[in-house]
C-alpha cells in the first residue's frame, strides 16, 4: 500500500497542492459488552476500515474519506477539489509550523489485546461483577467492557511515515438505587491507570471485587443520607472528580483552536486570550499543570500526533501562571501571526483524529496537575474547617467560553473542624473558573495522585470522540457554592 499512497500524494502535489497527508486504517476494531441486571444486553464487535486524505491547496484545507478501497483516486481528487472550493472564502491562508520529518512507530503497552482475548473470559468477568453487585439497596447493576484496537498508517508529502497500533480498554461497573424520596442515586467505578498496561491483564478479580463491594456500600450510605446543604464551603475534590474539573475548565479552554475561534459554531470558545500567555494568573501558586503525552500507559499518549509531530511533555500552567496551550502545526502559526509576536515556538503535537473519516484537531493529551506538598487526603481534611469531599462525576455543564461550571457528584461527605462528618446526597457545586482555581488552597501529595481516563471527549464538526488521560491529586478549593 505504501507505494500507492506515495504515488497519490505526489499526484496531488503535481496538481498544485501545497501539502497533503493520508491516514489509512487497515483495521479499527471495537468491542462493547454490557451486562445489565444479569442480562447481556449488548455484545457487539465492529470493524471500520478506510482512509482519509487531507489536502492544503490555495491556502485552504480539503478533506475526503471513503470506506471503499476501490475508489482511492476519486477520493484524493475530491479532497483537492474541496480545498480549492474552500479557498474561495479564505481570510487567512493556512501555513503549517515547521516540524521534524519523522519515520517511526508507536504501540500502546498491552500484554493482552482485549480484542484478541477469548470472549468467554469477558462474559465470565461480567457475570462475576454482576453477581458481586447484586446486593441490598441496588435496583440497577451495570458492568461493561469497551475496547478498541486500531492500526493507523500515516504518510505526508513532507516524507513522514508513521505506524501506530493503539489499544484501549475502558471497563466500568455501576450501581443505582432509589432513596427515600424515590430519587435515583448511583455510584460507579472505572479504574484509573493500573500498572503499566492498557491490556486485558488489568481485569483481575482480586482488584475488582473490593471495588464492587465499596461502590455498593457507598451507594447505600447515599440512599439514606440527608440532602447536601446549600451553602458556601471548601470543596475537596477526589481524583475521580478533579480529573473532570481539569478536563472541562483547564483542558478545553487551553485548546488553541478554541482560543482562536475555530469551535465557536458548536463546542464553544475560551475565555483565554492570546495576550494572557505568560501573565494570566490562572490559579493560585499551588497550581502546576502539564500536557504530558509521554506519560506511560494512558490513552493520552500516542507516540506521534496526526500532523506527524512527536509526542511531548510540557507545562501549561506554572506556579499558577498560564504559559502554554494545547497546540497543533496550523494553530501555532496563526496564533503567532495574530499576536504579532512569537508566543508558541512549535507545535505541541496534540492534533488527533478519532477515525479515518475525521480530520485532526487540537486534542488533550494527558492534561495533568502535578502533585503538591499538602500531604495525604487525611492531612487535607484535618486542615479544613468547613468543607465537603466530593467524588464521582454525576453531571457536568460548562459555560461556552469555559468561564463557569456546574458539577454534580455521586458521593459526598461533609468535613467540619478537620473531622469527617456525615455522608450527604445530591451534592453539587458551581463556580467561575478563574476565581475557583485562584482559591486552590491545598494540593495533595504523590499518595493522592491518580491517572484517570476519559474515553469520550467530544469535539469538532463533524463531531469526534477522543480518548485521553488526566493525572490529578486530591485538591481543595475554598469559598465554593455548594448545593443542588
Amino acid at each position: 500500500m505504501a507505494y500507492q499512497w506515495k504515488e497519490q500524494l505526489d499526484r496531488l502535489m503535481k496538481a498544485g497542492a501545497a501539502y497533503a497527508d493520508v491516514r489509512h486504517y487497515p483495521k479499527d476494531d471495537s468491542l462493547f459488552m454490557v451486562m445489565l441486571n444479569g442480562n447481556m444486553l449488548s455484545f457487539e464487535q465492529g470493524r471500520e476500515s478506510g482512509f482519509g486524505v487531507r489536502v492544503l491547496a490555495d491556502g485552504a484545507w480539503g478533506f475526503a474519506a471513503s470506506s471503499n478501497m476501490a475508489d482511492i483516486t476519486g477520493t484524493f481528487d475530491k479532497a483537492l477539489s474541496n480545498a480549492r472550493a474552500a479557498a474561495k472564502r479564505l481570510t487567512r491562508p493556512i501555513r503549517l509550523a515547521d516540524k521534524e520529518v519523522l519515520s517511526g512507530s508507536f504501540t500502546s503497552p498491552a500484554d493482552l489485546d482485549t480484542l484478541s482475548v477469548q470472549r468467554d473470559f469477558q462474559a465470565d468477568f461480567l457475570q462475576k461483577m454482576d453477581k458481586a453487585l447484586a446486593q441490598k439497596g441496588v435496583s440497577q447493576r451495570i458492568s461493561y467492557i469497551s475496547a478498541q484496537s486500531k492500526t493507523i498508517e500515516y504518510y505526508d508529502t513532507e516524507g513522514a511515515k508513521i505506524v501506530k497500533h493503539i489499544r484501549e480498554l475502558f471497563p466500568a461497573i455501576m450501581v443505582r438505587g432509589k432513596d427515600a424520596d424515590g430519587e435515583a442515586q448511583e455510584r460507579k467505578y472505572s479504574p484509573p491507570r493500573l500498572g503499566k498496561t492498557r491490556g486485558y491483564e488489568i481485569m483481575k478479580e482480586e482488584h475488582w471485587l473490593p471495588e464492587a463491594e465499596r461502590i455498593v456500600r457507598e451507594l447505600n450510605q447515599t440512599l439514606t443520607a440527608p440532602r447536601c446543604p446549600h451553602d458556601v464551603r471548601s470543596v475537596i475534590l477526589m481524583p475521580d472528580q478533579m480529573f473532570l474539573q481539569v478536563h472541562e475548565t483547564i483542558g478545553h479552554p487551553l485548546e488553541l483552536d478554541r482560543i482562536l475561534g475555530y469551535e465557536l459554531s458548536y463546542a464553544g470558545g475560551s475565555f483565554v486570550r492570546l495576550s494572557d500567555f505568560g501573565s494570566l494568573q490562572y490559579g493560585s501558586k499551588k497550581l502546576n499543570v502539564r500536557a504530558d503525552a509521554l506519560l506511560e500507559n494512558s490513552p493520552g499518549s500516542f507516540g506521534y500526533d496526526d500532523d506527524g509531530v512527536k509526542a511531548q511533555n510540557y507545562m501549561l500552567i506554572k506556579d499558577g501562571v498560564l504559559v502554554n496551550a494545547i497546540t497543533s502545526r496550523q494553530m501555532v502559526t496563526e496564533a503567532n501571526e495574530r499576536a504579532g509576536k512569537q508566543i508558541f515556538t512549535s507545535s505541541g503535537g496534540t492534533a488527533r483524529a478519532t477515525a479515518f473519516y475525521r480530520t485532526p484537531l487540537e486534542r488533550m493529551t494527558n492534561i495533568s496537575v502535578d502533585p503538591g506538598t499538602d500531604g495525604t487526603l487525611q492531612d487535607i481534611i484535618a486542615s479544613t474547617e468547613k468543607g465537603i469531599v466530593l467524588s464521582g462525576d454525576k453531571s457536568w455543564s460548562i459555560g461556552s467560553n469555559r468561564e463557569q461550571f456546574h458539577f454534580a457528584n455521586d458521593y459526598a461527605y461533609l468535613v467540619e473542624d478537620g473531622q469527617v462528618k456525615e455522608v450527604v446526597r445530591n451534592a453539587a457545586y458551581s463556580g467561575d473558573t478563574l476565581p475557583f482555581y485562584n482559591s486552590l488552597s491545598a494540593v495533595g501529595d504523590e499518595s493522592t495522585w491518580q491517572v484517570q481516563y476519559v474515553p469520550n471527549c467530544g469535539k469538532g464538526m463533524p463531531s469526534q470522540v477522543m480518548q485521553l488521560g488526566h493525572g490529578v491529586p486530591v485538591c481543595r478549593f475554598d469559598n465554593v457554592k455548594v448545593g443542588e
Partner: protein
Amino acid sequence: MQIKQAVEQLKALRAYAISKNVRATLSLHREDSHLVRLANSGVSLNTSEALTRVSVTAYADKKTAGVQVMCDLADKETLLEAVDKASEMLQYASPLNYSPTFPVIDESSEDRAGYDEGLAHISNEDILAYINTAAEGLENEDIKLSGNFSVGSTLSINLSTATEHTVVWQATDAQITLVLSSLQDKWEINAEQSAARLSDLDPKAMRKRLSFLRDKYLTCEAQQLPLGPCRVVFGAAATAEYLSLLCYLGVDGGMMKRDNSINLKEDIGKQRLSEKVSLIEDPACLDTFAIPADNHGRRRKKKAWYDKGVFTGFIWTQDAADEHGETATGHDVAHLSYSLLPGDQKVNELEELSALAKEGDLLYVPYLHYTGVVNATEGLITGTSRFGALMFKQDGSIVVPYNVRFTEKLGDLFGEKLRWLSSETTVYNTSSTYDARNPEALAVPKLMCCDDVKVEISNKSY
C-alpha cells in the same frame, strides 16, 4: 448508491446466513455527507465522507450478538465474515433471562419521500453562495463568521432471515448554523436552519435574524443580570433541547425500568404537565426526517404521548418490551419525529417581544449550551444561555445580558411555570454528527414563555 443493487447484495448475504443456519437481522447504513465549516470568516474545513456500514445481529434462544463492518458492498469476503463472526460470538454470549423477539418483517416497504435529489447533490459553489448571502455585509474587522453547513443523504435497509421482505428508507437533510462573534468582546449570536429539500434553504431568513441580533448587540447596553427568578422566553433551540430531554426522561419505558425516568407506571393517565402541552410523534412529517416504518417493518402511527398534559403511556422498544414483559409499541427506529403542538399566543417573532414586555421584563434565551441532567428522576436540568440572549425591558428598552445558568425541573418548565406557547411552530434540527449520519429534528412552537425561571449563575462578561 443504487438501492436495487444494494438490496440484492443484502439478499445474497441473507441467503448465505440461511445456508449457514444463522438466524440474523441484516442492516445497511449508507451516508454521503458533506460539511463546510467556517471560522474567522473563512472556510476552515470542507469535508466529504462516503461510508457504508453493514450490521449483522445473530439470534439464538435467549442470546444475541452483533457485528458491524464498514466496507464496500462489493467486498463479499468482509460481509460473509461478519455473518460468521456474529454466529460465532453467540456461543460466548451469556443467556438472557427472557427470549428476544426475532424480527419478522411482514411486508416490504420503501419510503423515499424525504429524499431530494437537489439537496443530495448541492455543490460547493451553491453552499458558498448560501453562506455569502446569509452573511452579506455583516462581517468586519471585529465581527467574524463561524458555522457549519452539514448536508447529506442517508439510506437504510433492514431485513432478516425470517422473510424476504425489506424495509428501505432514504432521506436528505441539511443542518445549518451560522454564528457571528466579536473577537474583542466575545459575544456570539447565531441563526440556524433545517432543510429536508433544496427549496427549504432560505439564506435571507438567516441574514434577517443575524442582522437583527447584531444590531442589538452593537447598540444596546450589555449587563450582568441579577440572580433570582425571571420570566423567560425560550427560542426554538432551547425549547427543542428541553423537549428532547422530556422525551428521553419521560416517555421511554426502558428508561423508566432503569430508574431513569420522571414518570412511573402509575402516572399513566394522570395530568403530569400543563394543559398547554401536547407532545405527539408524527411519522408522516418529512420536515422532521420521520421514518414511517420501524426496523421490524411495523408502520408507525401518529400518537400523542402527552395529551394536553396528560401522560398517555410509555414507548416500548422491542428489546425493552421483551426484557420487562411488555408489548412492543413499534418504535425500533432511530428517532421518533416528535412535535410539541403550538399554543394560542400570537407572538412568533423576536420583534414582537418588545410589545409583550409591557407586562413585565422578558429574558429571551434562544439557545442552551451544554445541558446536564443533574437528577434524572427529578428531571433536573442545568444549562447556560448562549447565542443571542436579549432582555426586553418593561420600559421598552432592550438590554444585552451576559450569559446565565438555569437549573430547572422539566416538570416545572412544561408544568406550572409554562405561561404560553407561540401559535406557530418551526422545525429545529437536533442531529448530531458524532456517529453515523442520522438526521433528526423536532417541531416546536417558535417561542415558549416560562415564569419564575431562576438565574443561578450570572456571568460578569461575555
